[in-house]
């Protein structure tokens, strides 16, 4: 069992040449049954397992991961955390996540390196400034922090931006959310894994779900590559593969899978201390602690389960980058990769019961699952333990598609989804 991390322990281990550190969590073999079973060892799954033990006191919680924990989208995203959404339901959800993130290093006793450096979303015309004002107002009314920036305020924060008079996307101003930022994505997975392990959760890697045990029309557990596992309640948090799993359970989801790419440049000295997004190009970036520029953009145009990303979108993202920062044309790209994301018609997640009783879903996060990890885990744990919605997750139930009450953030927030 890992002991408590502290500056004192770091100092003590340093004197011993760092030979005394123990594994942060144990790699368990599956038990035949659990009170609660979580499918998916990404951030959302690990957070769910942690909150099942911490908030609901469940003793026998199992978490199944087909590969290694944090090896999917949790390790592939661009680490941005923000809650600059338009609709009250969305702000309630994402700001809940942001608030949990603000206390997470202390809560988990694990440094997730959350750096609240703010995000600027830049507008390029008078009309876009009106949209920016509308979103800023909505965010303030919904109770999260937002400011409308003018051109000078944007350039003060990001002086390297293209300021030419003939710029294709001139800077008129933008939306600022100061509490937004970036965190170390792997640390979020590892921190939750360590804290869950400490509360007795079994983290089981290399265990792929191949089917569901359905008894009397209810989910009674899963079939896996390591045998059958029974469960009192089952939750799935497998974004990117939600439809694959739902097909095994016998229902369809309002989800289409797309590749979302990201890339990093070679490391350079500090030159960008916020997260920056251009409304016009859809390209966004931040600078990592190592100095690499971490760059992302819109979705690939072709539905895909291939974790690679296609060249046309890569070209679009990079041409956007060079429009924003002409000086970055000299940088070399170090790596490029892609994750598979669940794209839902209204760009909002699907959280709630599924058509198979006893099985709950947390998925459909589209391009923005990382920022929601603490909330996603909290809400799925609530559903699994209480068999009913938390008030924050209720609007995101799948029944919204039949009721017509969509939460259409693609149209609402003017943010690349």
């Amino acid at each position, binding site marked *: 069992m890992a002991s408590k991390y502290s500056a004192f322990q770091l100092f003590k281990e340093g004197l011993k040449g760092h030979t005394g550190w123990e594994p942060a969590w144990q790699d368990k073999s599956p038990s035949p049954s659990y009170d609660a079973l979580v499918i998916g060892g990404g951030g959302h799954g690990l957070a769910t397992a942690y909150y099942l033990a911490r908030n609901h006191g469940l003793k026998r919680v199992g978490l199944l991961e087909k590969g290694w924990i944090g090896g999917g989208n949790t390790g592939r995203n661009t680490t941005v955390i923000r809650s600059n959404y338009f609709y009250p339901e969305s702000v309630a959800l994402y700001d809940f996540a942001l608030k949990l993130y603000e206390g997470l290093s202390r809560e988990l006793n694990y440094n997730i390196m959350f750096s609240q450096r703010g995000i600027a979303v830049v507008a390029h015309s008078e009309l876009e400034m009106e949209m920016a004002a509308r979103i800023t107002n909505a965010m303030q009314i919904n109770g999260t922090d937002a400011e409308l920036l003018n051109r000078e305020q944007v350039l003060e924060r990001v002086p390297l931006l293209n300021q030419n008079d003939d710029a294709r996307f001139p800077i008129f101003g933008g939306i600022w959310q100061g509490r937004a930022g970036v965190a170390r994505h792997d640390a979020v997975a590892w921190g939750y894994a360590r804290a869950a392990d400490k509360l007795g959760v079994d983290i089981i890697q290399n265990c792929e779900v191949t089917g569901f045990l359905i008894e009397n029309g209810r989910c009674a557990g899963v079939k896996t590559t390591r045998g059958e596992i029974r469960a009192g309640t089952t939750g799935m948090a497998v974004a990117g593969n939600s439809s694959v799993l739902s097909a095994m359970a016998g229902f369809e989801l309002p989800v289409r899978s797309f590749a979302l790419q990201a890339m990093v440049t070679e490391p350079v000295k500090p030159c960008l201390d916020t997260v920056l997004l251009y409304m016009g190009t859809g390209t966004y970036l931040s600078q990592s602690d190592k100095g690499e520029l971490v760059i992302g953009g819109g979705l690939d145009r072709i*539905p895909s*389960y291939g974790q690679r990303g*296609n060249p*046309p979108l890569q070209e679009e993202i990079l041409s956007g980058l060079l429009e924003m920062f002409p000086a970055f044309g000299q940088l070399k790209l170090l790596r490029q990769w892609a994750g598979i994301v669940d794209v839902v018609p209204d760009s909002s997640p699907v959280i709630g019961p599924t058509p198979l009783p006893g099985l709950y879903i947390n998925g459909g996060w589209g391009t923005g699952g990382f920022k929601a990890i603490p909330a996603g885990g909290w809400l799925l744990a609530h559903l699994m333990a209480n068999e009913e919605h938390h008030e924050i997750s209720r609007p995101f139930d799948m029944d919204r598609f039949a009721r017509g009450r969509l939460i259409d953030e693609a149209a609402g927030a003017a943010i690349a989804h």
Partner: protein
Amino acid sequence: MMQRFSCPFCGPRDETEFFYGGEAGNERPEPAENISADRWAQYLHMEKNENGRAREIWVHLTCGEFFVMERDTVTHEIYKTEAFHGEQK
């Protein structure tokens, strides 16, 4: 390298000339007044979202024709493209 799709009318063209139109075989339920909200939501929003071989409707934006493409959603290999004459039940 950009991928090329073969339009049944124009031949091989760059992927950027094409737009995904949805899963083949998802037919509009009729008559509208007898269709439940759940069935309508199923038609509008629910997806098979196949991992592997999929049969899809695409449109070639430059010529405006819709067609059917069968491809692998993991490897992106194209099996065939054919003109769309309405799906057979």
